[in-house]
């Protein structure tokens, strides 16, 4: 057997005990690994109605069989848990080097249970596992924590995932950061980690990943690499990063602006891929095994001292990594800020403080709308929350992480904040999670993709702007659900492999990855089986959510998207016709009209016993 290590590490933070367990071979085959395998465990072991911030919630870190191999972008790990932001199952994905290191230490999965009695961190050095005191890191930023752990443990090659002050302070959209700039970003997985009093997981692994059929495996890898080398999507990611997408979405009136009040941003060109590359980027940077290198290592411009807050002297001009597309949008267009340095600074703060820039930007945009409409006034906030205010952007990132002043409200996310101020309509998201950077009025299919995503508003399960900007009419609801369902299955099985989703748009679709999985594990996966595994995973997540108390009513969109069209631009006059798309979606899924998987479907997927 290869690809998988076949082992999981289970750590109970309450009792301080740990165990190394064998993973059932049948489960590895049925789910490939990663997201699916972790969902299977979560389904088996946890009461979905439990408090996400209580000790009953489990926090699972899952690699895939290709994590830690030379398959392009085989860097990923998934964090699977009950999301603090969403109260639904979440599956938050990150690259960098930490996931491979966990694999090299000998584990496909790490399951964390309980709650540490005091601030602690977990140290894993192959089969040596220790829960150690983290008092000296509590309150510290991500960068300082990582450097400190490396020095304390004396292992230069140590890899660290950790939370920042935002996770400690239970900001609802706190991330788990790894390798300083990489994030398992969404749904408040860092909040869950914070609730467990766990500051960091420091890993050193000296083992390796075996391969069942090396020759076939390497042939599949080289073929995938060759394909990607010449692929225009790959070239664009390498040259311009993900922020190149700004031009596309803005052109279609699908770049949400000022909390989705507009669909185009007048300063889009100040934030796009070319702007970053030409004016701020020092180098591009890859995650482990990545042949794309979409990461941007950036520096701030000369005039940006005014945004210098909370900065380590050594990093005084380094903005760190980013912004990638989502952060550039959330911290930029959505808040109306067209100052690239402010966006870079805010992004740097989100990384160091450990917060999801999408939810941060979107929640701030919601607050800016409250301020714009007079719901909150200057007495409520320490700095005017005017759309376009760079100062407000940078300041409120800090205030949110530390829950200072109005930051306390922002720290709850836009849904809870909107409800508190009796204006729930300012929340632009679903299942409690703020949307990313695509306005479904510009790309109709995103509407059904957002509404049905198991972890709430998310663009990574079915990215419709691709086909909708090329082969489909972006404004008609027809045909969208039929495209979204198989695409969700496809991306889900992709997530299970441990390979970055971006390769799919860069010449490395599942058709190229499946042969790598087969050769690595020695289990032959046909494309049919791969897609079935994606569907199986999607359905088990759905079952989990239904047991957690979610219903059809949660497969919804904000009123603004359903009723309020843009008044100008390419998407002028369009609203999202979810009413049309959702029944078709349910039917395509083999679910009943209430969105419940039918017994036949469950039997077909081998889930009848659940």
């Amino acid at each position, binding site marked *: 057997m290869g690809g998988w290590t076949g082992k999981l590490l289970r750590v109970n933070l309450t009792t301080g005990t740990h165990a190394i367990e064998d993973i059932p071979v049948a489960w590895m085959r049925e789910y490939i690994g990663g997201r699916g395998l972790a969902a299977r465990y979560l389904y088996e072991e946890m009461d979905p109605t439990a408090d996400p911030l209580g000790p009953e919630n489990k926090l699972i870190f899952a690699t895939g069989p290709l994590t830690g191999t030379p398959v392009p972008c085989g860097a990923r790990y998934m964090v699977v848990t009950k999301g603090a932001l969403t109260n639904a199952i979440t599956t938050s994905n990150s690259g960098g080097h930490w996931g491979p290191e966990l694999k090299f230490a000998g584990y496909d999965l790490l399951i964390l249970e309980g709650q540490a009695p005091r601030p602690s961190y977990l140290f894993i050095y192959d089969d040596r596992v220790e829960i150690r005191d983290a008092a000296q890191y509590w309150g510290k930023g991500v960068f300082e924590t990582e450097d400190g752990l490396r020095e304390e443990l004396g292992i230069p090659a140590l890899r660290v995932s950790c939370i920042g002050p935002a996770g400690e302070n239970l900001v609802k959209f706190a991330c788990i950061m790894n390798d300083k700039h990489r994030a398992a970003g969404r749904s408040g997985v860092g909040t869950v980690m914070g609730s467990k009093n766990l500051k960091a997981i420091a890993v050193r*692994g000296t*083992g*390796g990943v*075996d*391969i069942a059929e090396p020759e076939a495996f390497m042939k599949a890898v080289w073929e995938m690499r060759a394909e990607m080398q010449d692929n225009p999507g790959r070239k664009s990611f390498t040259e311009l990063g993900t922020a190149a997408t700004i031009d596309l979405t803005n052109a279609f009136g699908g770049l949400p602006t000022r909390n989705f009040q507009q669909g185009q941003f007048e300063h889009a060109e100040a934030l796009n891929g070319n702007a970053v590359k030409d004016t701020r980027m020092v*180098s591009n940077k890859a*995650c482990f095994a990545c042949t794309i290198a979409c990461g941007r290592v950036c520096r701030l411009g000369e005039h940006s001292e005014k945004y210098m807050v909370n900065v380590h002297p050594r990093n005084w001009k380094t903005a760190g990594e980013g912004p990638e597309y989502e952060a550039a949008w959330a911290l930029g267009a959505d808040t109306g800020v067209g100052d690239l340095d402010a966006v870079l600074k805010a992004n740097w703060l989100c990384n160091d403080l450990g917060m999801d820039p999408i939810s941060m930007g979107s929640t701030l945009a919601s607050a800016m709308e409250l301020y714009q409409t007079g719901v909150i006034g200057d007495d409520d906030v320490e700095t005017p929350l005017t759309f376009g205010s760079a100062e407000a952007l940078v300041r409120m990132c800090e205030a949110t992480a530390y829950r200072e002043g109005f930051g306390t409200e922002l720290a709850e996310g836009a849904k809870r904040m909107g409800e508190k101020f009796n204006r729930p309509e300012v929340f632009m998201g679903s299942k409690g999670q703020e949307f990313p950077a695509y306005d479904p009025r510009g790309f109709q299919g995103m509407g059904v993709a957002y509404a049905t995503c198991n972890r709430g508003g998310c663009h990574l399960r079915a990215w419709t702007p691709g086909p909708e900007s090329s082969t489909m009419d972006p404004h008609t609801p027809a045909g969208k659900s039929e495209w979204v369902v198989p695409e969700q299955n496809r991306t889900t099985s992709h997530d299970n492999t441990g390979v970055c989703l971006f390769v799919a748009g860069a010449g490395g679709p599942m058709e190229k990855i499946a042969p790598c999985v087969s050769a690595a594990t020695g289990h032959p996966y046909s494309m049919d089986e791969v897609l079935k595994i994606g569907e199986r995973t999607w359905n088990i997540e759905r079952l989990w959510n239904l047991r957690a108390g979610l219903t059809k009513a949660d497969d919804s969109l904000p009123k603004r998207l359903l009723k309020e069209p843009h008044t100008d631009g390419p998407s002028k006059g369009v609203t999202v016709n979810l009413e049309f798309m959702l029944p078709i979606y349910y039917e395509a899924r083999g679910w009943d009209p209430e969105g419940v998987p039918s017994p036949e479907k469950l039997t077909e997927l081998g889930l009848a016993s659940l």
Partner: protein
Amino acid sequence: MSKVLNIVPDRCTGCMQCELACSWVQTGTFAPSKSVIRVNVFDEEASYAPYTCLQCDEAWCMSACPVNAIAIDEATGAKVVIEASCIGCHLCTIACPFGTVFTTPKSDTATKCNLCGGDPACATACPTDAIEYVEADRAGGWFEPWTERVNSNYVEAATGAN
């Protein structure tokens, strides 16, 4: 003139494909901790570069060996460890001023870059041509510009100078 590994730091993205390749060739498993090419990741200076034995002229490792277990592969000019001769004394490791010769307890013999006998897997694996296997008098010509970049970026950041 023989071939050397030439490194082009500006092309490196820090992806570790070279470490994966090297460890696979040595151990038949993907275990970067066993790689003898090590990627330097200098985030603050935004500079990345793989680093391995230059097959340097002085060959400190070869001189330090008490039992002549490091010698020159005439096909490539590489200084290679003769495993059957190596006693595992670690002297080559502490004598190499580049930090590119290793002795680990598990193997108990020295290990270092041997240029894969003239077909270095790291160069094959590199997706950005940051590692080239090319004709040259001597390896290491890339150090000066790389040093310049790392040094100026650091000094600038440390002192606040522009």
